[in-house]
């Protein structure tokens, strides 16, 4: 009897343990299944985009169901014929876990970007849903293309990869119905004496799908020459003539441009303004040359490195002239060049300043054109324009120490060449017209130095 009771109890316990184990196994299986189903998703939002030509639009890179996110990277490609990147901005999701480091690099030619962000230090990653980054594009021309999100790399605080799924976006871009433009501005003659007339021919075009009425104005520098109303059918263009009376205007170089007022519903207003390819020079009735600008290529140059100084000289007189132009650093003549100019012409002269032997600190740059025979207007033969600081090597933010501000300045301009939006000539320390690793290395080698 006692044995039977014991046997029953043991059987009950074994059954309980078996069922409990089965329950645990089932729960583990369910947890694994749930984890598999809850794969982290990174997606372009909105997934379907429509925008007009010349309009900016933004997309978010959204992450969902992430656990312990410490750092992320993604690549995005687009059709560079249709779109150009305006900005890439970090969003606050990762910052909820602490301080972050964010970097991005775009290749506008191939239509690819890579964007990275990481937390800093020994902190846990962040969880949940959020926005990683916002990217703004400008539509260059009509068409459609995918915004292909790929090579998404998510790392947790143990530097392990988080499995994720990338979801693309798709854009459809069209021209606006309303679009007018100034397509050309011609001036004639280019050289005049005060009181003579200049003909300004402005071509306006209706690039939209509907008939439009608008005003066109022409300007000489900031002074208005005149305004005329224009009506154009879709796809047509017309030349509008203006006459500029130069009476009362002093000698000088004048920039002529035209503007068309925007029509209702117009998106592309960048081409509503146009500047004439050639300037108009109002001459002086006699012999007269002048320095019109002095432009050092940098504001900060490192000791022993070279800098270019471009001097623009103009012949305002009625006669061809040959004369000497010199560039001064403080009161020291750097170099003298001879140049010859016909009436109304100008030229840019390039001078190279090797800073070896010059002291650190600010130096005043000036240029002087030696007066020509018969010249009486000599006040503009000398021009001071710009101060150049000589700093110790690597100290491109010249505060006496090579530090993170110098590194960051080079990093911001990294990969740029002249005329790129992020070009900074001061960061091109070695003057090879590219801000590259060689410039970073110069700063890095001198990092921490003071003087």
């Amino acid at each position, binding site marked *: 009897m006692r044995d039977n009771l014991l046997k029953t109890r043991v059987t009950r316990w074994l059954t309980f343990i078996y069922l409990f184990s089965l329950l645990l196994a089932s729960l583990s299986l369910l947890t694994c299944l749930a984890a598999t189903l809850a794969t982290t998703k990174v997606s372009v939002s909105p997934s379907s985009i429509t925008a007009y030509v010349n309009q900016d639009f933004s997309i978010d890179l959204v992450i969902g169901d992430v656990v312990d996110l*410490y*750092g*992320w*990277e993604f*690549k995005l*490609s687009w059709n560079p014929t249709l779109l150009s990147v305006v900005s890439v901005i970090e969003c606050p999701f990762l910052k909820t876990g602490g301080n972050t*480091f964010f*970097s991005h*690099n*775009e*290749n506008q030619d*191939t239509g*690819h*970007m*890579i964007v*990275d962000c*990481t*937390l*800093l*230090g*020994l902190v846990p990653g962040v969880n949940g849903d959020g926005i990683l980054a916002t990217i703004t594009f400008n539509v260059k021309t009509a068409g459609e293309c995918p915004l292909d999100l790929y090579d998404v*790399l998510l*790392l947790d*605080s143990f*530097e392990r990869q988080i499995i994720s799924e990338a979801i693309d976006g798709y854009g459809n871009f069209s021209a606006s119905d309303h679009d007018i433009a100034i397509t050309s501005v011609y001036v004639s003659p280019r050289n005049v004496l005060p009181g003579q007339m200049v003909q300004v021919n402005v071509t306006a075009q209706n690039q939209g799908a509907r008939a439009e009425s608008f005003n066109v104005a022409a300007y000489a520098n900031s002074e208005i020459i005149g305004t005329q109303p224009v009506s154009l059918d879709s796809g047509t263009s017309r030349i509008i003539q203006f006459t500029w009376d130069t009476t009362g205007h002093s000698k000088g170089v004048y920039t002529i441009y035209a503007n068309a007022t925007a029509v209702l519903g117009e998106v592309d207003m960048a081409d509503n303004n146009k500047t004439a390819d050639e300037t108009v020079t109002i001459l002086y009735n006699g012999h007269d040359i002048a320095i019109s600008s002095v432009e050092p290529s940098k504001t900060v140059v490192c000791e022993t490195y070279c800098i270019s100084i471009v001097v623009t000289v103009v012949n305002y007189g009625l006669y061809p002239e040959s004369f000497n132009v010199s560039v001064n650093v403080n009161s020291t003549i750097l170099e003298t060049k001879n140049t010859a100019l016909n009436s109304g012409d100008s030229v840019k002269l390039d001078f190279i300043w090797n800073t070896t032997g010059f002291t650190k600190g600010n130096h005043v740059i000036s240029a002087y054109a030696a007066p020509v025979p018969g010249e009486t207007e000599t006040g503009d033969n000398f021009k001071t324009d710009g101060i150049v600081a000589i700093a110790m090597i690597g100290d491109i933010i010249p505060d006496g120490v090579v530090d*993170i501000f110098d*590194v*960051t300045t*080079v*990093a911001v301009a*990294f*990969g740029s060449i002249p005329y790129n939006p992020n070009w900074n000539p001061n960061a091109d320390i070695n003057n090879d017209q590219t801000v590259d*690793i*060689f410039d*970073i*290395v110069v*700063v*890095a*080698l001198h*990092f*921490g130095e003071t003087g």
Partner: protein
Amino acid sequence: MNKTSLIALAMLATVGLALIPNLAGADPAVEQTWVRMRGLVTHYGATPVFGGLWAHARMVDVNDSYREWAGSHAIWSDAPKHINCTEPPTENFTYILYAAKLVNSSMIELNYLEYNFYISGVWNVDKVTFAYYVDENGELISYSWTIEPVVTGAEGELRVLQSWTRFELAITGVDLISGIVVHYAIGHMEIKIGDINSDNMVNIKDLVGVAKKYGAMPALGNYEFEMDFNADYKIDIGDLTTLAANIQAP
């Protein structure tokens, strides 16, 4: 990571040396060779020390115009317990290390004389003394460091020998610095600074690797000299920026 495991890693890396003769996609008008190496400093003269050496070089021939560039620095100390320490200090202490930096290279060669790799140039060597101040709970209150030049503008040679297994750094006026090569790579495409995990690309994996050491300094935090690209004795925003600059869009 302790010294033993680092040496084991070094030996493993030396056995599995990386040679990257990647010519695919190279511009035929540009012949370039990149070299990267990392080493463990084991001796300063006859004194056993612990530290690291980093060198990165580019030799390029563009339409018969030859240019070369090299960067290199080494950090070492005879107080191994403080480098790479993972435990915070619990009392005030000072810590001395030595740092050699290549200022200007004059000659960079592969397979020169009996050396596998050779850089000559001008070096600076500094003695750096850190002072760390902590409270009774081991929390850091402040720190400072002073730099005393040992030699400035001295001629020196970095020589890699014995089939890329050992190196010696001979700088005029200081004892011979020597050690073992833990990794090297030779390529005809750019070998980028910042490829911490040596997978021939610079990406978020490298960035996170450095970010996790953010704020680390010798003897304080998990400092790794090879992540201190600018050799300023601290893993900080400058190193992250240098690395990020090498993450390029396709």
